[in-house]
């Protein structure tokens, strides 16, 4: 239990670092120096010191949503095992609660965007809903496939059960799952090619447009929850990418952190080599994720 708490604290502290790592990778590719490593923390601190401004159109929903989103993200984090160690909360079937909490986070964001009464934010909310409706089946099927592969029904049981042995036995399945989770990770976090996190006030964006009216601590909550989500979905990939199971405590933690860093750097590389995809192509890309995971599931049925 203390180790699970330590991992939880580690995730809370380190998750903005993933943003920084991705940003630095992109800067490296662009030949720039990039912002300081602690920039995401500075920005969170700056936002927290400010006061929030609420438009008269908004209601209490808009004020509750950021806190709800952050709470959902942190609750999902308590279900997530890290470095082959059991999570704080674990019970059979918690993978459904896990994806439900991610859905709650999204629901809060969408409600807040709709509550502003701005047509632009409404558009963003509609796009977010459409994309996540396609991404969620892929995520749940991927978790289900891991459950089926390992014979465990709890995230804390099934992610550590993925070992080098599993790669030897069923590497095509794991590779398919990895690609699926990577696509879901990029879509859910609004990264290129699904959305461009650096654009503002542009008609093609999805995530950024939904938070245009948020300010001060509310915006800090939203940004921090987004960083946590990056950590949460990244940890799913890292668990497959860098199986730590037989290793002792300390090397396992190091390997898991290296896996997280690998995911963040891979995101940066993806964003450097790809452009944002056309909006009407995105459903096809996410549909591909679902198809890949369905193929993986069928292969496991053998």
């Amino acid at each position, binding site marked *: 239990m203390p180790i699970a708490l330590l991992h939880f604290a580690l995730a809370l502290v380190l998750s903005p670092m993933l943003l920084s790592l991705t940003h630095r990778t992109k800067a490296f590719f662009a030949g720039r120096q990039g912002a300081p490593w602690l920039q995401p923390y500075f920005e969170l601190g700056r936002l927290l010191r400010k006061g929030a401004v609420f438009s008269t159109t908004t209601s209490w929903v808009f004020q509750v949503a950021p806190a709800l989103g952050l709470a959902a993200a942190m609750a999902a984090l308590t279900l997530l095992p890290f470095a082959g160690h059991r999570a704080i909360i674990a019970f059979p079937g918690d993978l459904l609660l896990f994806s439900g909490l991610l859905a709650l986070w999204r629901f809060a964001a969408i409600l807040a965007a709709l509550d502003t009464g701005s047509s632009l934010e409404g558009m963003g909310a509609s796009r977010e809903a459409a994309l996540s409706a396609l991404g969620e089946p892929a995520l749940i099927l991927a978790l289900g496939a891991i459950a089926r592969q390992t014979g465990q029904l709890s995230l804390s049981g099934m992610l550590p059960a993925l070992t080098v042995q599993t790669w030897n036995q069923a*590497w*095509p399945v794991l590779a*398919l799952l990895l690609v699926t989770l990577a696509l879901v990770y990029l879509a859910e976090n609004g990264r290129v090619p699904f959305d461009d996190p650096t654009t503002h006030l542009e008609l093609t964006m999805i995530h950024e447009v939904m938070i245009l009216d948020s300010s001060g601590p509310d915006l800090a909550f939203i940004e921090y929850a987004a960083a946590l989500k990056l950590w949460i979905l990244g940890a799913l990939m890292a668990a497959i990418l860098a199986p730590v199971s037989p290793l002792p405590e300390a090397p396992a933690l190091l390997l898991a952190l290296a896996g997280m860093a690998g995911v963040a750097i891979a995101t940066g590389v993806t964003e450097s080599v790809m452009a944002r995809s056309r909006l009407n192509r995105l*459903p*096809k890309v996410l*549909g*591909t994720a679902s*198809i*890949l995971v*369905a*193929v993986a599931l*069928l*292969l496991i*049925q*053998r």
Partner: protein
Amino acid sequence: MVTQALLILLILTCLSLLGSSRLSAYIRIVALQGLLLGALTLAVHAKSLSTDIVLLALGSTIIKSLVVPRMLARAIREADVRTAARPFLGYGGSLVAGMLLLPVALWLGWHLTLPHPVAGGLVVPVSLYAMFIGLFLIAGRQQALTQILGYLVLENGIYAFGVALLVDYPLWVELAILLDLLGAVLVMGVILFDINRDFDHIDTSRLSALKD
């Protein structure tokens, strides 16, 4: 191991055939399938490699991924078509149908009783799947060229099936099938060219209308 990866790539190429709309992409994918099948021939028989098998792998790769795609690329250049005509079932619908065909093929492949156990549990289901997708393309697309490609995918499936049973059937049967394939594509290319010259399009759903 390698066999399994090749077969999964084969499934994915089949699915991408259903989802794409550019003719040049179709041809590239079918050429890639030829390459995968060549590698599959070697991978399935990696333990008992003989000159026959290497010859077959080489011959099929050359025909399926070089000669036939070249001919088809020439055909679309001469017929001057770039994108496939609107299919009877949309691309998204085709993908869903393709996805539904996969469990059918897997179930059928795993329950089919064969004279002797086949190398790699996936070979037979995937070959059946390629046949299904081939038939689906022939039935579901209206352009003559996509139908030829459907025929090629169907043949790829039959070839994969043959590879699994290569122990039983001599090399010459396989080579004869390859030659047939080459002849058939040649004839189809000529017909395609004739249809295009006479009708100014290669849309088979409009061929029932007589032209003066």
